[in-house]
């Protein structure tokens, strides 16, 4: 049976003085925790902690929290761009990574768009994408 969505929970019965919560402070703590978890993952990755060992951690983590530690599609995108050493067509990049089973083609395309928006990737002429630091070199 499907569980009801949390945000569909009705308001408390005594609604006369109901005041919606301010949850911003908690959300900022969650944001910081996610950033810290991601930094730890990257440091372990840089220190040759194998993908297999990382996946052991991922499967140990409670399913509700697993999203915090699962490998990111962006990792594979960055790795691919670093090895290509030049901007790559968006379509070709998505196709190539989908073949490598990094994720579905829709998820990869979505990740490319989000990363361009948040400037983790940079857009180059002819609808190609590359690393943001390449843009700086191009300007210089």
């Amino acid at each position: 049976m499907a569980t009801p969505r949390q945000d569909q929970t009705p308001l408390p019965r005594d609604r006369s003085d109901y005041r919606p919560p301010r949850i911003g402070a908690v959300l900022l703590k969650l944001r910081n925790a996610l950033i810290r978890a991601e930094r730890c993952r990257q440091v372990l990755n840089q220190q040759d902690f194998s993908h297999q060992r990382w996946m052991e951690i991922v499967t140990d983590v409670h399913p509700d929290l697993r999203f915090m530690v699962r490998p990111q599609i962006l990792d594979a995108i960055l790795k691919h761009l670093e090895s290509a050493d030049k901007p790559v067509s968006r379509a070709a990049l998505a196709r190539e990574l989908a073949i490598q089973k990094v994720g579905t083609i829709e998820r990869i395309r979505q990740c490319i768009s989000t990363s361009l928006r948040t400037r983790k990737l940079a857009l180059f002429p002819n609808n190609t994408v590359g690393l943001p630091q390449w843009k700086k070199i191009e300007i210089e």
Partner: protein
Amino acid sequence: MQTWQARWLDELVRQVYHVNLSQCRDFAEFKGLLNFMMANLLEVSNSLGCELTDDRRIRRAAESLKVKADRLLMLCNDVAESFDAPEEWRAVMAQIVVNYEILRFEAGYLYQLVVPKSPFGVLRSAL
């Protein structure tokens, strides 16, 4: 280190109420929550009243969010002042909920532009 713009938005995140109009069961609840939503819209509009940055993308996103907040605030004002058909409140609520969802989405987008390292659009979740 965080920019002053990021700290500014974080302060907004702390100030706003987490409003979910679709939880409302009757007209009284709807009108009660509407006041908190209007407080949120006012807070968003006032926070974005000044020049946030020279960055064109951020400026455009902030302007668009401010326009949406002001428009929705006007709609909510009309509802709060002159709405006298409590039997039709669900239709009005649906219209406001849709507009508020769009505003929340844009708020999350602006947040991620200003705080690119943020793993999610914190302002969207807070609203």
